[in-house]
């Protein structure tokens, strides 16, 4: 049995905390980093539940600033 | 006689209107495109181009735009892409173009605008005038800028100034204008048309215009044609750079002509068609024993201020004869700086004065002074 496992890398300096990725993610991977802002003063997101990521790239596709890079790999269970 | 005819045949002497000469000259100087809108008294420019079909010979684009606003923005686009492009219009249409001209000055792109002036203000009349002198030389749009302005007074100069205007525009990356009027646009004279110059290749354009937005090459950064800069410190530098450029143009590009000034006591300053009338006026004046001479600015901007200041020394007075309510006279007054009396003569509403009127003005306004 194999399944897809994904991982995202968020450019937190570029992120503006708009949360559209959070809405787009089917797996509840992403959340706003709590009580943190980046160098521009924006709150930003992080993969809070990274294990759930399947690498669908929905987050990256909807991101208006192109902050998210997505990786995906087939892993054997 | 036969040899003379052969020479003139080779030189292609033709009889045509000033407007037509602009069209022929544009094709021959290798212009890449004309974008314009009909308006009296200059629609022959576009009509002549349409008849000549240069898109089939030199590949020059000719497009009737939907308005003068669209026309000047097409010039902006083409010039910003490194191409030799021109438009033509008359006073009310040129008023519409002022935004685009200011953008071109701000973005530092070279294009040519021909204004065949008519009476105003507003819709005005279709008869000739010279009442756009301010609009042309004061930067009729917004901001601190100038337009290199050439004032032809013959059909020959209409033909010759097209290439000259392009040369100056590209040399300084600034819009240039041929400020003509309905007399010169519509009158027919002999003209020797320039030799056909080939249109520049892409390689030549990239070399002449490395700043142009025409599609990148991998060896350079992207180009952006824009007049926008929101950081004041940077914008100040941009403007200072423009001012330095204008100072250089003022230094190097003044053009003028004089006639019979060597022994003149009175100087008549005239440009464009008024200067042709003034030539005759001087002839008439001299017949009456009045020593008048002509100073004809050819570049209205840069204005020949130093040359006028020099030449009025020892004169009894200056009469500025222009077909408007008094526009160039202000620049003449600034140049003369109080050294001698300066008076203005003009007609309005599209009326073109007779030479006798200029002679009378000279007598009444200057010679009867104590």
């Amino acid at each position, binding site marked *: 049995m194999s399944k897809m496992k*994904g*991982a995202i890398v968020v450019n937190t300096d*570029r992120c*503006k905390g*708009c*949360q*559209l990725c*959070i*809405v*787009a993610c089917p797996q509840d991977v992403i959340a706003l980093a709590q009580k943190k802002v980046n160098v*521009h003063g924006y709150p930003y997101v992080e993969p809070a539940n990274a294990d759930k990521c399947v*690498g669908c*790239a*929905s987050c990256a*596709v*909807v*991101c*208006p*600033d*192109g*902050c*998210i*890079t*997505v*990786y*995906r*790999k087939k892993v054997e269970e | 006689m036969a040899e003379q005819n052969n020479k003139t045949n080779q030189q292609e002497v033709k009889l045509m209107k000033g407007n037509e000469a602009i069209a022929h000259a544009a094709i021959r100087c290798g212009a890449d*495109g004309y974008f314009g809108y009909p308006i009296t008294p200059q629609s022959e420019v576009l009509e002549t181009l349409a008849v000549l079909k240069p898109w089939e010979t030199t590949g020059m*684009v000719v*497009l009737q*735009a*939907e308005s003068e*606003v*669209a*026309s000047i*923005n*097409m*010039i*902006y*686009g*083409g010039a*910003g*892409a490194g*191409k030799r*492009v021109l438009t033509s219009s008359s006073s009310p249409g040129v008023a519409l173009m002022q*935004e*685009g001209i200011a*953008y071109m000055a701000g973005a530092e792109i070279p294009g040519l605008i021909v204004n065949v002036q008519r009476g105003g203000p507003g819709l005005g009349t279709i008869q000739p005038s010279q009442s756009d002198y301010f609009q042309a030389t004061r930067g009729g749009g917004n901001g601190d800028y100038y337009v290199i302005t050439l004032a032809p007074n013959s059909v020959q100069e209409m033909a010759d100034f097209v290439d000259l205007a392009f040369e100056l525009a590209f040399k300084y990356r600034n819009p240039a204008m041929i400020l003509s009027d309905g007399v010169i646009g519509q009158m027919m004279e002999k003209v020797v048309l320039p030799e056909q110059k080939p249109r520049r290749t892409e390689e030549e354009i990239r070399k002449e215009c490395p700043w*142009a*937005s*025409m*599609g*990148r090459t*991998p060896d350079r*950064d*992207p180009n*952006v*044609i*824009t007049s*926008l800069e929101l950081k004041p410190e940077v914008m100040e530098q941009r403007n200072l750079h423009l001012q330095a450029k204008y100072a250089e143009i003022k230094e190097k590009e003044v053009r003028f002509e004089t006639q019979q000034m060597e022994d003149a006591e009175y100087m008549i300053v005239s440009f464009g068609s008024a200067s042709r009338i003034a030539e005759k006026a001087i002839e008439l004046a001299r017949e009456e024993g009045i020593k008048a001479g002509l100073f004809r600015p050819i570049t209205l901007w840069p204005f020949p201020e130093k040359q006028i200041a020099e030449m009025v020394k020892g004169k009894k007075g200056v009469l500025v004869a222009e077909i408007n309510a008094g526009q160039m006279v202000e620049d003449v007054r600034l140049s003369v700086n109080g050294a001698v009396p300066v008076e203005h003569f003009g007609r309005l509403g599209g009326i073109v004065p007779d030479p006798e009127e200029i002679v009378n003005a000279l007598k009444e306004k200057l010679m009867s002074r104590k």
Partner: protein
Amino acid sequence: MENNIISPENLVYKKPTLMNDTPMHYCPGCSHGVVHKLVAEVIEEMGMMNKAVGVSPVGCAVFAYRYLDIDWSEAAHGRAPAVATAIKRLWPDRLVFTYQGDGDLACIGTAETIHALNRGENITIIFINNAIYGMTGGQMAPTTLLGQKTATCPYGRTPELHGYPLKMTEIAAQLEGTCYVTRQSVESVGSIRKAKKAIRKAFEASMQGKGSSLVEIVSTCNSGWKLSPVKANEWMKEHMFEFYQKGDLKDTTEL
């Protein structure tokens, strides 16, 4: 575990290279960013980075030229189609497109939009319609909906005072010069995929000399609408899509 997934051979998606690293000035959640990404991706996929010339508007996207590494010409308000007309006619092998907002395209630039489209200029006009003037602080746009509140219609747009919203895309579909006229959006993965296809089709059509294309993207302006980005998308789906119906209004490209 995560570490051996994050590795170049597993790359699925990243920001297109043509979109540089300059932080974009758009508000968080602004649709402009997504459309910029799509334009960059399409140009890259077509291999046209060195042939593309973009014409940017006056509006929030005036600085589009900072973010996509192609040659740009910044046009006066509304005049982009005229600027693009000249560039394309003078350099016929270039990929020429305009990128304009609703005020630029449907208000001050109405004549230039209609005439360039009607002449069938081989350009693409990308129309970002968010029913408001974002850059200048949220004033009414020609596409503002009846009842919608903006800075210059604070009690809601009414026909008596303000006239009706204008559907430029429907007008464009009736012009003979157009070959492809479509209305899309970019709020979901599915709609983004369609919007990208639309942009690609329009760009291809212009390179094949098939005429003019208009790609409208119904968009959000969360700042102007005074909603969060997420809520703005919801408002758009609920109100804008009803009036500005998505889909292809005209397609004679055979692409």
